[in-house]
């Protein structure tokens, strides 16, 4: 693995100079630290993907199948027919450049091919050459170019420097959706056996066992039981999870990061405390043990394959509706694709109604799934939760809108409403307006590229987000970065450790868990992370206990 340069050095080297040569004459520089490793053949075999073989991005020969060009062009022709959007996006761009400086990867790298307009042009030029009359006749004059191995390598490089966050689409006067183009481009790459290991390993694990981390049912139960014990130790409240229980009212599905990786595990504890508090009749599934969907990062077909288990389990367990945890791309997939993937709105589920407040979630009428932030905000609005906000007094928070929940789904107010209810007044500070809500900057590592080997590009892609976090740290003394996405909880800690030392990351339901006041609870002296709370309990005593 390459050595990551120091932050000052990396920032200093971002250059926005105009390149000396035209874009068609510049090849990508596959420097270690900038690209993801090739998927191991094992994972490709697990999911039946074509052309499994050992190959390396760093080597000149990518061991492509002999007819790779025909496969790509046939794949493009097929997608142009199936996705009218793709053809329209290819045809209507007028190169106005409104998108250019909106991409976090362009802002972080200064590489013109990370301007969304040019990233799309990498594929558009091939479309022109083979599918338009002007391109066939005039070639380069019409912006067309032959599909060569170098072009394919360029796709691979830049389509994995797009995190399908759609910030560029927001500013495009035509609404061209770069995310959709990137996804279809990645599908075409996969058709000739070009996949990245981090995404495909997670996909294969999920397809095989039900979660990206590859948790077996016993591992899933072990982790949940452990977190329930932790809840009991800290709060004195038992929060026993139920597994695969038929007839429960609600199936709760969360991203696997929330029960495996810190700091997500504290958010998982928060979910359990909340459900215990309101007496929710819910079950977990040891198979639908993953709300996230790395499959969607690879192809629509794979997204569908991984997603189907959520409805299957809801059907088998005979629940009424589904509640989803804090996960970004889960939310995008479930709201925008799930009923389509399934074929119809699932008739075996009911339109979700909160059993506590009676609120009917009409927005979930079709997909029958509610987001935990919507659910919690509704509980608070109806005065169903009692909080002691002083238990979060040590947390000065800013909120990172995750691309998929905010730009993808319009969940802006709910998390903020929860935050303001569980933190003392004045403890929540917004980042600058052009970096939040629908204009939020991506974490820089989403869409399956949160690997180790491409750390330099991850840190550059996340630079605009980190910059805004650093601003509120320096100006307002913010010490926690909140989010409602497990992928963010995996990537942001690495990002802020690099650019904004001293910043902690947290889920929002963790803060709910901290603040909830239960009847008969233990006297609280720490938060869910075992951090001593100032003014709670006897400080001297806790200090002595602390050196165990």
């Amino acid at each position, binding site marked *: 693995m390459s050595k990551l340069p120091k932050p000052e050095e990396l920032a200093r080297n971002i250059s926005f100079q105009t390149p000396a040569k035209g874009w068609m004459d510049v090849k990508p520089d596959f420097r270690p630290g900038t690209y993801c490793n090739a998927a191991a053949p094992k994972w490709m075999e697990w999911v039946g993907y074509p052309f499994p073989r050992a190959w390396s991005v760093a080597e000149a020969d990518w061991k492509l199948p002999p007819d790779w060009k025909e496969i790509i062009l046939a794949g493009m022709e097929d997608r142009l027919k199936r996705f009218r959007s793709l053809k329209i996006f290819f045809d209507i761009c007028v190169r106005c450049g409104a998108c250019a400086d909106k991409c976090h990867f362009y802002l972080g790298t200064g590489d013109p091919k990370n301007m969304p307009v040019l990233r799309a042009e990498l594929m558009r030029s091939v479309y022109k050459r083979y599918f338009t009359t002007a391109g066939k006749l005039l070639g380069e004059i019409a912006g067309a170019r032959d599909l060569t191995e170098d072009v394919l390598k360029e796709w691979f490089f830049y389509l994995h420097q797009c995190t399908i966050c759609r910030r560029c689409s927001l500013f495009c006067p035509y609404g061209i959706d770069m995310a959709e183009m990137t996804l279809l481009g990645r599908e075409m790459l996969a058709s000739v056996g070009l996949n990245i290991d981090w995404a495909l390993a997670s996909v294969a694990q999920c397809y095989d066992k039900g979660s990206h981390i*590859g948790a077996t049912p016993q591992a899933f139960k072990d982790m949940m039981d452990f977190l329930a014990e932790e809840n009991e130790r800290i709060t004195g409240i038992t929060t026993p999870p139920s597994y695969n229980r038929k007839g429960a009212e609600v199936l709760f599905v969360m991203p696997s990061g929330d029960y*495996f990786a810190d700091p997500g595990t504290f958010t998982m504890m928060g979910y359990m405390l909340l459900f215990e508090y309101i007496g929710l009749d819910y079950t977990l599934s040891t198979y639908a043990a993953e709300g996230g969907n790395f499959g969607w990062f690879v192809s629509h077909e794979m997204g569908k394959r991984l997603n189907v288990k959520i409805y299957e389990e809801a059907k088998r367990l005979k629940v009424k509706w589904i509640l989803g945890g804090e996960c970004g791309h889960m939310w995008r997939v479930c709201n925008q694709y799930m009923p389509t993937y399934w074929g119809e709105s699932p008739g075996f589920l009911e339109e979700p109604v909160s059993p506590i407040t009676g609120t009917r979630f009409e927005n979930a009428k079709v997909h029958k799934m509610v987001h935990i932030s919507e659910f919690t905000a509704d509980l608070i609005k109806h005065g169903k939760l009692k909080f002691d906000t002083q238990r979060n007094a040590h947390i000065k928070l800013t909120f990172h809108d995750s691309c998929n929940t905010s730009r993808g789904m319009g969940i802006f107010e709910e998390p903020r409403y929860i935050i303001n209810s569980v933190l003392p007044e004045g403890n929540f500070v917004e980042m600058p307006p052009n970096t939040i809500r629908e204009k939020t900057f991506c974490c820089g590592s989403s869409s399956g590229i949160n690997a180790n080997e491409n750390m330099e590009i991850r840190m550059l892609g996340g630079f605009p987000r980190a910059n805004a976090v650093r601003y509120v740290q320096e100006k307002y003394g913010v010490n926690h970065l909140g989010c409602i996405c*497990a992928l963010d909880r995996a990537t942001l800690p690495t990002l802020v450790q690099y650019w904004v030392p001293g910043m902690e990351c947290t889920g929002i339901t963790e803060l709910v868990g901290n603040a909830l006041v239960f009847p008969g609870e233990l006297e609280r002296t720490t938060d869910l992370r075992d951090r001593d709370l100032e003014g709670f309990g006897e400080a001297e005593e806790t200090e002595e206990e602390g050196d165990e």
Partner: protein
Amino acid sequence: MAVVEHQGKTFEVDEDGFLANLDEWGPEWVDYVKELEGITTLVEDHWKVINMLQDYFKKNGIAPMVRILSKVTGFKLKYIYELFPSGPGKGACKMAGLPKPTGCV
């Protein structure tokens, strides 16, 4: 897949340098990762972590959550980093021959 040679033994590893097959694990592999990690001497606590990781993996099919590792061994995360400078995943799991973690981690 790359191949690593150490003390006359060869090991198949993935691109992140994790052992491809736990069956190939042995003292030579441990010594190889020890050098990689810059650990001078392996003490009893290193072995306590390695044994816990392997036992858990054999029973559950994945590496334990860091907090479970911490609870079972009684070692705080900070101490685990002192034992394995690259941390519980890239250091300890690698030495124990476990595969690298995947997903939102």
